């Protein structure tokens, strides 16, 4: 499979990239290419201008300041998956980075690309929601978008056509985990649940539970979050009970591999597993 023709640019700064994005004909950002190139090979998308961000290396970094983390958009899944700090302080992201795709995809694919792509079966969107992450977007002017406002639907985000996602920030989440039920062929999530807990000693004080893979965009399971409060982290039965009925009022997807009913039921099971994992030390 062979993509249609395009012009290729490799700018050396965000500004240059933004300029190309505004001026180039049917321009698109190329990050790791792990979603874009497969789609171009099938000619599902045919950009005329590709702007390769790899010339802007300052976009690839993970920085911790106190309990606050900034991840550059160009940071690869592999570098997150190998990062001991991320593992300790944001287990939910570490889990997802490890569960996503395969080693080769992780070596090239980036967190910014995965989030901008907003595949409904992708792993990071739920994670970002559970982390309550903030997306730093460069464009005409730089703006910040909360995760809750970023993921709009299938392949749809708050990013404008001439905007570039540069960074993602979030607070440390020591008690957090991501668990997914994989599609047997694609590795993508049939259901993926990201759990971020606030624990006081062994009790769940507060929780952010986000579910991906089911609907057009990830969503928070508000009911589960409420029911988890006050539950002991080692009380598996109570966690299961709290996670029952995690999905309400969503338009759940169905395919050859898994029906909407199954995905909905699995959301409860996977949510309980994710919460259980989040209560345990990393």
């Amino acid at each position: 499979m062979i993509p249609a023709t395009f012009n290729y640019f490799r700018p050396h700064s965000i500004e240059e990239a933004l300029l190309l994005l505004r001026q180039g004909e049917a321009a698109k950002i190329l990050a790791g290419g792990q979603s874009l190139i497969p789609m171009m090979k099938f000619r599902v998308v045919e950009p005329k201008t590709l702007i390769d961000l790899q010339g802007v290396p300052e976009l690839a970094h993970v920085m911790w300041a106190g309990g606050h983390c900034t991840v550059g958009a160009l940071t690869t899944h592999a570098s997150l998956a190998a990062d001991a700090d991320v593992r300790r302080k944001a287990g939910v992201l570490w889990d997802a980075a490890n569960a996503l795709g395969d080693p080769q995809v992780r070596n090239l694919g980036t967190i910014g690309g995965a989030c901008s792509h907003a595949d409904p079966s992708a792993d990071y969107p739920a994670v970002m929601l559970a982390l309550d992450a903030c997306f730093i977007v460069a464009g005409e002017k730089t703006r910040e978008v909360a995760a809750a406002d970023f993921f709009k639907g299938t392949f749809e985000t708050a990013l404008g056509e001439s905007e570039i996602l540069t960074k993602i920030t979030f607070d440390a989440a020591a008690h957090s985990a991501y668990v997914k039920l994989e599609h047997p062929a694609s590795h993508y999530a049939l259901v993926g649940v990201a759990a971020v807990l606030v624990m006081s000693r062994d009790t769940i004080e507060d929780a952010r539970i986000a579910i991906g893979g089911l609907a057009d965009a990830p969503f928070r399971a508000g009911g589960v979050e409420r029911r988890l409060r006050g539950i002991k982290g080692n009380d598996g039965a109570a966690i299961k009970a709290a996670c029952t009925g995690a999905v309400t009022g969503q338009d759940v997807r169905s395919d050859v591999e898994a029906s909407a009913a199954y995905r909905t039921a699995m959301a409860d099971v996977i949510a309980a597993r994710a919460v259980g994992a989040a209560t345990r030390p990393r």
Partner: protein
Amino acid sequence: MGRIELEVNGTRHELEGVEPRLLLVHFLRERLALTGTHIGCDTSSCGACTVLLDGKAVKSCTMFALQADGRAVTTIEGIGSSAELHPMQEAFWAQHGLQCGYCTTGMILSAIDLLRRNPDPDEVEIRTGLEGNLCRCTGYENIVKAVRAAAAAMAAAQPVREAGEPPKSPGELLEVGGSR
């Protein structure tokens, strides 16, 4: 048309007239005649096209050649020859880790990348570590054996360290990939 300057298997190449849409796998196979890198799918799923980019495994069917500008690519032809096999090649041979051989070149490079990250993987780690590569012939049984054997051989080939001194990096155990 683009210009590209890169290192492939230790040799510098400067080429003009590279169409931006030219995939790295086609660049390697057609422009450089390195046909050991295979193509097995069109969805970035099979890993037959795996090469090392700056020492790390990537799918060369999911990369444009121009993206490799300024970087170092290692293909199967660059890790060893019949006269001097890489320990991973030797292990695939000794353990019968291949049948038709089509997946094998990519599998070997992925396995090398796996040992870079984890020099002493157990069976489960090997199986998950090779999740980017499909083999239809072997049922993976002997591939797993081969990677275990290669890990042991490569560990044994390491210069003796002071007792207790950890390896400087996982990559220290490997002599591959032109990381710069």
